[in-house]
């Protein structure tokens, strides 16, 4: 039998536990604060810089597909951005995931705390970044005469939660495995690229042949972004794809959690 106890015999049990939990929360807060401060250090300029990448990408796609290839999708820019902005969140978090524990080697090797906080911080950080980019989306939307409706009031928190769970699960799994197989990021880059084109982001499911629609249910990433587009562009909850998105999010969290719990005890041995 092997075990490791952290107990306090002198102090009553309960306050000790809640102090520990409070300390975990404090770690989450200071790490998140660090990421946000570093990113938005020079306030306005930092914010604009962080928007450059998605906006330039959107401009390129817009010119290529709407101007050159003459895609016949009304309000193409809004259709594009409504899935591209949420995609950036997943792309940033999952793309960074392989390096997360390696980048925090000191914490992993010296400080005893729930290490899942590290991928959680990245997920939340990129969520906040997505929320800060949302006004830009609304601005373009209004320019096209599309106004957000009351459906956002419940749709937005719901999709934020589903995305958080989905992305956190993936990050947890990838960051854990990468400590043991250090070339995982090469595979992740390729998978993210495939997922980007296999998901309706630069195109819309409306133009996909009906007999091919089943593939968007098999693709674990697609239902989430179809649901985001339905909300941000269509102002509606997607009753067809949202249940799938929720299902995949739960699966992602469970798989991520199982992988993490099995490997977690060995992190400090291999880092």
């Amino acid at each position, binding site marked *: 039998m*092997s075990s490791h*106890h952290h107990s306090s015999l002198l102090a009553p049990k309960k306050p000790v536990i809640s102090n520990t939990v*409070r300390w975990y929360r404090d770690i989450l807060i*200071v790490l998140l604060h*660090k990421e946000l401060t570093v990113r938005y250090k020079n306030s306005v300029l930092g914010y604009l810089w962080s928007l450059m990448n998605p906006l330039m990408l959107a401009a390129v796609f817009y010119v290529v597909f709407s101007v050159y290839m003459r895609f016949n999708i009304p309000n193409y820019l809004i259709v594009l951005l409504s899935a591209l902005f949420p995609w950036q969140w997943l792309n940033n978090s999952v793309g960074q995931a392989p390096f997360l524990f390696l980048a925090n080697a000191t914490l992993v*090797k010296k*400080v005893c705390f729930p290490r899942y906080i590290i991928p959680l911080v990245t997920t939340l950080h990129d969520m906040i970044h997505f929320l800060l980019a949302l006004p830009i989306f609304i601005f373009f939307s209004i320019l096209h005469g599309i106004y957000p409706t009351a459906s956002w009031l419940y749709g937005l928190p719901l999709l934020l939660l589903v995305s958080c769970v989905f992305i956190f699960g993936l990050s947890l799994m990838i960051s854990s495995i990468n400590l043991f*197989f250090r070339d995982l990021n090469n*595979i992740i880059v390729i998978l993210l690229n495939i997922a980007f084109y296999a998901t309706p982001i630069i195109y819309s499911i409306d133009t996909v042949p009906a007999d091919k629609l089943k593939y968007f249910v098999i693709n674990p990433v697609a239902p989430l972004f179809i649901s985001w587009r339905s909300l941000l562009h269509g102002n509606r909850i997607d009753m067809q794809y949202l249940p799938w998105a929720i299902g995949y999010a739960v699966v992602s969290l469970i798989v991520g959690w199982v992988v993490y719990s099995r490997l977690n005890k060995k992190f*400090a041995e291999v880092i």
Partner: protein
Amino acid sequence: MGADIAIRFENVIKTYPAYHHVTGGFKNFLFNFRKSIKELKNRSLVLDGISLDIKKGECFGFIGRNGAGKSTSLGLMAGVLTPDSGNVTVNGRVSPLLELGAGFHPELTGRENIVLNGVLMGLSRSQVQNQLEEIIEFSGLGEFIDQPIRTYSSGMYAKLGFSIVSNLSPEILLIDEVLSVGDHVFVQKCMNRIEQFRADPNVTLVLVSHDHVSVKTVCDRAVWIENHKVKLIGSANEVVDAYVESCEKQA
């Protein structure tokens, strides 16, 4: 376990994997599949049946050659490693002393880094906030405290690091060899502060070092680990002398 014991090792066995093929990546793993599988099962022994008690309030040292298992012991006490068998029981809150700058971010200001580092070393945010002005005063950094620390000189860096250590109120403080590699001023001030912790009956200090001089001067008791086992345990003077003698014999 009695209330006077801070840390107890009971017949602790710890092995490490020979993971280097696996950490070489999927490609390596697949191309050297047989070898990799063999290596996965082949773990090397680091600690072989260690039993010892560290009393509350004492200063306890670990000495031994490189690779003897000192840092592994520290990892077990910190709770970042798990023993293969046996028990490591810790009675109290463990604070790891992070090496100078390990929990710093260059883009953050001195003030922000104090909060970040303090929390990572086991303080709560409110504890740091309550003592923030005191810590800043102690650091003597004046108006530089609101500058990003990438603009700091190494001396200022050390001052900042130490001002946090000086305000730690640990129950069990784990100190790695880090103290020998930091800035000289930092090391000196830390040693003074460690003297104060030593005098405090509520603070248990655990020092891991192959620098036997510091173990002798700081610690009350020590353990000498050789070939993954406890070779000798007793007063720091006695253990260090025996260790030095054995090293000289071999040299």
